């Protein structure tokens, strides 16, 4: 394990510790994240405030506290005090005040509730400061101090204990067997050897069974040698979202190590944004050597299959707009594939303004959808997104991320918006043309 991957402890009762101890833990969490990049970024900020122009939370609520760089102030203060000899000189000159516990408490809302780590502010910053990454690093310190929104903490603890917020391996197996019965489809489960390890999201297991069935049908149709594993199925990473580095590492390494154990050459991440971020772009934290494993997103592999002419769909003949999930598009490099798939589905694509890498976030990423007290702010972002969708006049509102979909669904319920948001895989499931029987629930289900 690399230095950055060194475990920190998941202590569920941190909140009971004295404040000085919690503060010291927070500082240690911050310091563990400091590196040359942090210094390059923090040294470059000129407080121009332009990052505010990009942030959806600031757009819907112009309170200056929502200026992106303001969200990491305690992290920055700690960095000023604790970076090497310059920190020492700064301390001596009184240029580096201490971070207080009260400040950390105040900033919990800014670091969690009002930042989705979407990285839109990174685009506008003239200095190129990646605030999204700094917020992710800052969350580590807050987590260590036990200053994490309660629901996020609950989900993180469940993921830490069981490996998934969905539930245990037995519960997962039972659910997959249900899908097999419902759809009369073959889902290879718990195979000891396979070329491809496929992972899923909790929503796919809980309710989006048609997606699970469609994935199985497509992978079978493509002739893949694949499996789902009940000991490594969870793609969501609540450690990544909450700043719990130990859990983040545990969840990431479980997927990668299992894939390697079964001799897989590819790990497939489902329709989720942060899961892609954690598995594809954050692995360096846990492994010292480059991985001999391809990590691919399901939208990417299906897009490729479409381009190779190996997947066909019944054309829909409708118009659609696509919400670009930040962690897949702006920060994930998957920009091309959703459009390839939409074209193959016979959809007339009407882009929202803005779209692609400059699209606004759904407002619920980065764990924000799980934070109850963030609802009002999130719903304001939802209204902005709903208006952008309406402007396109498109028939369908699509995305490729479970969290975005959930955020939109909750926003729609809260604001009385009566449109539906589907994911690409849901539409693909309905329109897939293959030599296998059409995907419909069997009576047995």
């Amino acid at each position: 394990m690399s230095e950055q991957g060194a475990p920190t402890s998941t202590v569920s009762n941190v909140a009971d510790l004295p404040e000085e101890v919690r503060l010291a833990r927070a500082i240690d969490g911050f310091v563990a994240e400091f590196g040359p990049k942090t210094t390059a970024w923090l040294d470059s900020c000129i407080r121009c405030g332009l990052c505010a122009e990009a942030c959806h939370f600031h757009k819907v609520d112009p309170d200056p506290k929502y200026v992106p760089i303001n969200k990491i102030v305690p992290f920055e203060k700690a960095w000023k005090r604790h970076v090497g000899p310059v920190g020492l000189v700064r301390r001596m000159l009184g240029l580096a005040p201490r971070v207080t516990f009260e400040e950390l408490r105040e900033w919990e809302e800014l670091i969690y509730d009002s930042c989705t780590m979407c990285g839109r502010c990174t685009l506008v910053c003239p200095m190129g400061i990646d605030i999204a990454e700094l917020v992710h690093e800052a969350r580590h310190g807050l987590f260590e101090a036990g200053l994490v929104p309660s629901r996020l903490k609950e989900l993180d603890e469940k993921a830490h204990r069981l490996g998934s917020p969905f539930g245990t391996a037995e519960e997962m197996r039972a659910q997959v067997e249900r899908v097999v019965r419902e759809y009369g489809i073959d889902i290879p489960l718990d195979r000891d050897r396979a070329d491809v390890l496929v992972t899923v999201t909790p929503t796919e297991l809980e309710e989006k069974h048609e997606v699970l069935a469609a994935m199985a049908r497509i992978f079978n149709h493509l002739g893949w040698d694949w499996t789902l594993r009940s000991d490594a199925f969870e793609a969501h990473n609540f450690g990544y979202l909450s700043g719990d580095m130990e859990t983040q590492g545990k969840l990431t390494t479980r997927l990668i190590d299992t894939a390697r154990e079964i001799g897989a050459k590819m790990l497939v991440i489902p329709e989720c944004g942060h899961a892609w971020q954690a598995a594809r772009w954050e692995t360096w934290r846990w492994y010292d050597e480059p991985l001999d494993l391809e990590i691919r997103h399901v939208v990417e592999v299906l897009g490729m299959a479409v381009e190779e002419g190996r997947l066909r769909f019944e054309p829909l003949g409708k118009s659609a707009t696509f919400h670009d999930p930040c962690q897949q598009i702006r920060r994930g490099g998957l920009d091309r594939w959703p459009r390839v798939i939409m074209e193959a589905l016979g959809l007339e694509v009407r882009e929202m303004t803005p779209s692609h890498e400059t699209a606004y976030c759904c407002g619920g990423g980065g764990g924000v959808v799980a934070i109850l007290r963030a609802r009002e702010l999130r719903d304001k972002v939802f209204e902005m997104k709903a208006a952008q969708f309406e402007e396109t006049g498109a028939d369908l509102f699509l995305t490729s991320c479970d969290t975005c979909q959930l955020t939109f669904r909750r926003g729609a319920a809260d604001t009385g918006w009566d449109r539906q948001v589907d994911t690409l895989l849901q539409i693909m499931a309905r329109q897939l043309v293959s030599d296998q029987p059409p995907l419909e629930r069997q009576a047995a289900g």
Partner: protein
Amino acid sequence: MSLIELIEGPLWTFSATLFVIFVFWRLISILDLRRRGASPKPQGSRLAGALRALLVRFVPRPPFTRSGRVWFTTVAGYAFHLGLFVLLLAAVPHVEFIERRIAALPWEPISRTGFVIAAEISFLGLIMLYTRRFVDPLVRRINRPDDHVASLLTFIVMLTGCMALGRQSAFLRGLHMGFVELWLIYFPFSSLMHTFTWPISRLVTGWEAGRRAVRW
């Protein structure tokens, strides 16, 4: 030794040395290229991403070009910095000073009119940016004491520099030099470090963007 001699001699050497040592120290700590963990397999060209981030950020990118704040800051920023560079590197006393103490310069100093124009542009930019620090509630919220000290010190250095332009008054020249020395000592510990770190910040972000084949 008179105060002026002290300022122009040992104090100058002291502040310049401190400046060089700490700026280098800081840059080296940023350029610490020791490997940390295994880099994810790149999806695109990291170098192209880094160069892109370095270059495209010289001008605002769409859709942010619709923002008045973006243009105000960009125009004021360029005015201040470009004017300052001209003053720093081409004002007659600076050229003489650099040639006497450091090395010969391949260009001629600017005329007095050139100086006045550069100074006006630079002051205008600095005043626009500095005023915004107080007027714009967003910027007021995020400003640190350091930002005010850095802006104020820079302003005083420029002002005393203009006052000392005639070079008739040793006092004014000494005053300017004194503030320059204070500025040099303050520099490595403050947000003035952005003078050197901005390209590194852009490059590291762009490098990551290139790895992911995204356009940041």
